[in-house]
């Protein structure tokens, strides 16, 4: 159980690091929001599942799963709101030919 | 091992606060203040004060952001770029002196977690031993706030209520 949770946490940490690199490297708002969504969906999932495995079957594990479900419902809403605000205020998306 | 982790958090807090002052645009300052209160709440949680961390998260990150936004919405955010005059000579002299004075006073405070400090000798054991028999409240912090210091808390609440009423009156006149 301990080894499995360590594997999950390390995998989640890997995705979080990749997402942070993406947030720094990508050229505009829209593509950066993809990187943030990568964090939310897979990185947070793996981290929290690893932690829940470490915690074992109890009320705390259920609470961690509640946090996970909340993240899965709320974070797409936030990303969508950000991108829609950017689009409506007239920010042009980055194209391939731009510098 | 335990005390080293606060330092990166405090560094992040410092960077955020400096950024909130230096940034040119008010919206970004509001966002940075939100991040600042996230970090502050993390520091509280690290120190073990979970209740304070919760209040900081609710008030700092949630309510204050929305209130700042309402203020920006009511005023004109385009024109309010920060125009700061250069600091005067008095400021340059007085504020470092004040800082030195505060640091000097802080050196008298007993170290964090020192078992021989006065608070740890007299007050905390009494609260910890007797609060459950006296008040039947499982949370010690709540017992201290609501029972042992209830007058204090009540007057604090009165102050907050008065400031709320003042804000409501001001905004009502603005609305007419």
């Amino acid at each position, binding site marked *: 159980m301990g080894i499995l949770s360590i594997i999950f946490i390390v995998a989640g940490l890997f*995705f979080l690091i*990749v*997402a942070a*690199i*993406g947030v720094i*490297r*990508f050229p*505009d708002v*829209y*593509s950066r*929001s*993809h*990187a943030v*969504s*990568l964090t*939310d*969906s*897979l990185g947070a999932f793996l981290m929290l599942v690893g932690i829940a495995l470490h915690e074992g079957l109890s*009320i705390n594990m*259920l*609470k961690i799963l*509640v946090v996970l479900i909340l993240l*899965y*419902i709320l*974070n*797409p*809403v936030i*990303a*969508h709101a950000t*991108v*829609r605000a950017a*689009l*409506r205020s007239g920010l042009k*998306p*980055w*194209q*391939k030919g731009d510098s | 091992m335990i005390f080293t982790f606060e330092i990166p958090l405090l560094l992040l807090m410092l960077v955020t606060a400096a950024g909130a002052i230096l940034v040119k645009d008010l919206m970004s300052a509001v966002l940075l203040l939100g991040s600042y209160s996230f970090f502050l709440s993390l520091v509280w949680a690290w120190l073990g004060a979970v209740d304070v961390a919760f209040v900081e998260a609710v008030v700092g990150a949630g309510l204050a952001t929305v209130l700042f936004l309402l203020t920006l919405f009511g005023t004109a955010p385009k024109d309010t770029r920060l125009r700061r005059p250069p600091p005067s000579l008095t400021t340059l002299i007085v504020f470092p002196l004040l800082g030195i004075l505060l640091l000097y006073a802080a050196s008298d405070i007993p170290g964090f977690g020192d078992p021989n400090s006065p608070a740890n000798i007299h007050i905390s054991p009494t609260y910890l031993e007797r609060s459950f028999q006296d008040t039947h409240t499982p949370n010690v912090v709540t017992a201290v706030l609501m029972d042992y210091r209830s007058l204090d808390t009540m007057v604090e609440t009165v102050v907050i209520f008065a400031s709320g009423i003042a804000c409501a009156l001001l905004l009502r006149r603005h609305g007419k």
Partner: protein
Amino acid sequence: MTLFVFWILLSASFDWIHLSLGLACSFAVAWLNSGHSPFAPKFRLWLRVSLYLPWLFYKIVQSSLHLSKLILHPALPIDPQMISVETKLNHHAAVVLLGNSITLTPGTITAEVDRNHLIVHAMDKVSKEDVTSKQMELKIADIFRDEKPDL
């Protein structure tokens, strides 16, 4: 009902006082908010949605691996573009579920939702295929096949 389960999870105490208080609070909140919800979810629907979730998770893992390959690639071979998608879904909750799934899948983000018209920002060709292949939409239409259309 869901709120009551949520209360139990949060308070994690099972005395009679807590349980009855939670029951009263959750009924009050549900009664206060009952006017806003456009439809009441049925049990059959929840079952189908929970069958849909593992497939969505498989798509998430697949596209996450693709996106992290893109990020770690030294030349950053991205080709972001806006595409607009027409859906044939005719249910509020179905459109919400579709937009949420698209946003949750890394590489695609819903930027604008009209009634049955979505503007999606996609990262490159592969993630564009995800949306234009209509696979996700067919699954969701399959979930909502028995519901009365309200759009």
